[in-house]
């Protein structure tokens, strides 16, 4: 993908300080450094002559830890203590800051922040270190190999000076092409469980600034009156009553008629005026379906022959193997629409400078999206648009829409003004739950054949649901031969050595906007794979753990790593030795390059009330740069996975979303899970994902624990509370 962008504006600003050393790796991976706009550089570390070292973090911080993690990589290679380095979020500039896995897009997602940055940031830090040492060596007339840089001080040959003294000279040097990186045995910060988050204090004392905390002089608040029925168009409005609200300014129908923008002096006035606005909607082209119809369509697709044979296997042979099997285990599953509901409602602020530049203040997950959209809307070159990335109050995928939905809304609201006042667009929780993009509903139908010895002889797996990636800029990367990999990931590419396995996929018609939701396809595929494995184990009269190990014994690296976390989690959980009155269930799954096993231990029964007493997790995500943040991501991922399957769904009645606010979409609460123990596998492999992989195994492990409780109930449709399970 070619992006029309320039780095001129940023470099000009970056080079303004006289003695600033900027080091990074160029787009092709070569190390580049420079101090002027003439050098093609990609700066990840900025060092000022006063010794201030700033990591320029290209990923946004929604709590998953890249601000701390990427800064750690710089500090490690520069030999600094964590308290000697700070961080700033990178500006939007896909040429310099693209996600190496996103093909020219700058953005955060797919649990890639560390995986795609690990070598890039280490290399930048190491190159800066060598340049500073070289500058000191020249100044002192010694060989650089005689010098060391530790904790900000360059020493050797009888001399000692702070690194800041050599920044000006280092900035004149050519960056080393292949700086020497630390050997892992030399790591002091990477992998150190005592390295703390850099953003803890400000998030506990109210100082942290999220996008919603942006207050520009004279700013207006904009909220949008939206239709009940999805897709209805605003044709007229009456604001006679809204005018009674002090602070109400005016209202205007959006250019795309998707709603009516209410402008006000403050948020409360905007909320009140919006409530009082009387909007006339044209529903002729609006959605009329209900979620029951969407579910019926998915179930019908599962009963028909699949459109895609995902792995181009011999489906007839699979069918034949199952027909001939000694016993057949089968189940049909249904997963409803889900909202992301990040804690901070969506919002962003737009201002125009005297020079005509547009500035977007946003918890920007995928800055390239709004950047390109704004270039179109404002008819400006990319360098006249600046995106200031703020802390984000969660996302779970919601802030990264391919359409830049809420940023575009804000831009449309802004262009309908004279642009003299900044506009902050604020969503309410109702906007978030009702007008949002959802994890699409999916259905699975699986038949597993077992022979007389209880071995799997055939696995027929059908999947149906709405594609997430088709029609987005990511389609060329993710969709192959019509198959959206995100619909089948975690199932069709299972590392289990299952004989005669076939996977069929049918895309169903568009029901709502859809979007990746923490762990994307794995949110349903892991559930189905791991519940089916459990059912098959039970049918075979085998222990679920031992049964799985049979299919993880071909010696592939994936199987070995899955087996390792499975062994570790079950050992730590006391698998098979649950206390009286408790039941255990397990699941193990690979996603985003990481391997996670979880054991859920419950008390109670679906009738009397299930209580989740304990979740034990083992994770192998390669080198855990910050093991405590990895643990936190597992804890959070488990909670996110379990909370939604317990009680949440988005439903539609006649095209209108039925849920309004948290009382209808009840979040996981503190008492829902008793205890979570996370064990991080020591690894020398390259880092892989942490933000999402904790989520997929949590729900099936819970389902398997429920099935192992006295009643044996198999929950195959979500949410569990509406499908036979009460929670204590």
């Amino acid at each position, binding site marked *: 993908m070619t992006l029309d962008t320039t780095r001129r504006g940023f470099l000009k600003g970056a080079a303004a300080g006289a003695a600033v050393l900027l080091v990074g790796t160029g787009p092709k991976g070569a190390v580049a450094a420079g101090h002027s706009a003439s050098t093609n550089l990609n700066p990840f570390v900025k060092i000022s002559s006063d010794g201030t070292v700033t990591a320029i973090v290209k990923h946004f911080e929604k709590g998953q830890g890249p601000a701390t993690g990427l800064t750690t990589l710089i500090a490690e290679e520069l030999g600094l203590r964590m308290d000697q380095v700070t961080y700033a979020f990178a500006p939007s500039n896909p040429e310099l800051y693209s996600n190496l896995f996103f093909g020219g897009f700058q953005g955060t997602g797919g649990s890639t922040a560390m995986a795609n940055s690990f070598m890039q940031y280490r290399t930048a830090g190491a190159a800066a270190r060598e340049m500073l040492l070289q500058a000191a060596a020249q100044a002192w007339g010694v060989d650089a190999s005689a010098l060391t840089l530790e904790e900000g001080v360059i020493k050797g040959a009888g001399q000692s000076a702070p690194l800041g003294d050599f920044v000006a000279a280092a900035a004149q040097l050519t960056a080393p092409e292949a700086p020497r990186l630390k050997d892992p045995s030399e790591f002091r910060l990477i992998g150190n469980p005592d390295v703390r988050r850099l953003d*803890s204090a400000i998030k506990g*004392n109210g100082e942290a600034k999220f996008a919603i905390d942006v*207050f520009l002089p004279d700013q207006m608040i904009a909220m949008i009156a939206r239709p009940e029925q999805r897709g209805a168009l605003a044709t007229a409005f009456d604001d006679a009553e809204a005018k009674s609200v*002090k602070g109400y300014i005016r209202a205007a129908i959006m250019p795309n008629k998707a709603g009516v923008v209410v402008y006000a002096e403050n948020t409360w006035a905007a909320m009140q005026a919006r409530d009082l606005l009387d909007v006339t909607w044209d529903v002729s082209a609006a959605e009329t379906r209900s979620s029951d119809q969407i579910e019926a369509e998915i179930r019908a697709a599962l009963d028909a022959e699949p459109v895609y044979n995902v792995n181009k296997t011999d489906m007839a042979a699979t069918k034949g193997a199952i027909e001939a099997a000694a016993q057949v285990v089968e189940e049909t599953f249904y997963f409803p629409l889900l909202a992301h509901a*990040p804690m901070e409602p969506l919002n962003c602020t737009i201002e125009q400078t005297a020079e005509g530049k547009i500035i977007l203040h946003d918890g920007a997950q995928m800055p390239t999206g709004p950047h390109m959209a704004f270039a179109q809307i404002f008819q400006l070159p990319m360098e006249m648009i600046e995106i200031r990335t703020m*802390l*984000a109050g969660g996302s779970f995928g919601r802030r990264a829409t391919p359409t830049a939905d809420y940023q575009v809304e804000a831009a449309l609201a802004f262009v309908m003004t004279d642009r003299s006042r900044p506009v902050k667009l604020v969503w309410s929780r109702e906007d978030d739950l009702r007008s949002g993009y959802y994890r699409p509903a999916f259905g699975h139908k699986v038949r597993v054949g077992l022979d007389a010895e209880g071995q799997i002889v055939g696995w027929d797996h059908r999947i149906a649901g709405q594609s997430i990636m088709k029609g987005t800029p990511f389609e060329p990367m993710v969709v192959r031969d019509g198959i959206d990999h995100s619909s089948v990931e975690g199932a069709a590419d299972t590392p289990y050595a299952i004989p005669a396995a076939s996977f069929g996929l049918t895309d169903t018609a568009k029901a709502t906007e859809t979007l990746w939701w923490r762990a994307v396809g794995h949110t349903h595929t892991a559930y189905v794979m791991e519940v089916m494995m459990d059912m098959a184990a039970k049918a075979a009269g085998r222990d679920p753990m031992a049964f799985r190990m049979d299919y993880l014994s071909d010696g592939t690296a994936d199987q070995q790593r899955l087996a390792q976390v499975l062994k570790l989690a079950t050992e730590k959980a006391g698998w098979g030795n649950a206390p009286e009155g408790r039941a255990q269930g397990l699941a193990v799954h690979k996603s985003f390059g990481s391997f996670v096993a979880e054991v859920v231990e419950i008390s109670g029964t679906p009738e009397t009330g299930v209580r989740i007493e304990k979740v034990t997790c083992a994770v192998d995500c390669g080198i855990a740069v910050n093991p405590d943040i990895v643990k936190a991501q597992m804890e959070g991922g488990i909670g996110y996975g379990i909370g939604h399957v317990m009680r949440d769904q988005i439903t539609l009645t006649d095209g209108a979303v039925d849920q309004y606010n948290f009382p209808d979409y009840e979040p*996981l609460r503190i008492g829902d899970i008793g205890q979570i123990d996370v064990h991080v596998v020591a690894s020398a492999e390259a880092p892989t994902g942490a933000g999402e992989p904790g989520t997929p195994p949590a729900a099936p492990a819970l389902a398997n624990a429920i099935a192992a409780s006295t009643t044996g109930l198999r929950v195959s449709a979500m949410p569990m509370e509406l499908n036979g399970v009460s929670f204590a």
Partner: protein
Amino acid sequence: MAIQLKLNGENRSVEADPGTPLLWVLRDELQLTGTKFGCGVASCGACTVHMDGVPVRSCQTYLEDVGTAEITTIEAISEDRIGAALQQAWVELDVVQCGYCQSGQIMSAVGLLADNPKPSAQDIDDYMAGNACRCATYQRIRAGIQRAAEILEA
């Protein structure tokens, strides 16, 4: 109209309608942005502040209901010994992830420890049930409250 507020130990005057939720007075008028908007219906606890030392949801507390009560927000809670202990524990244990709900969590937790200096896990779960955290940092919130109790006992 001008309304007088006792806020974080100071007297403040704000121009606002008496029916305005305290949340929006704090955020939009006084730019005390540590208090967060999460749901507007007292269902998530992100907007929790203290009224005469008692945690309340500021999205459902109207200016006219405040009267002469002392309002304390996250910005001033470090002056309270319980608040300071919780903030210390939060940093020690890296409780936060996105951090958006954490002001409210700490403000509620101050109320808990003021009532119950040695809460059990069950006491914490009961008292903190109204504070949602979408990142699910609950395990560390529980540990953070117990750590703060230890700090206060020492």
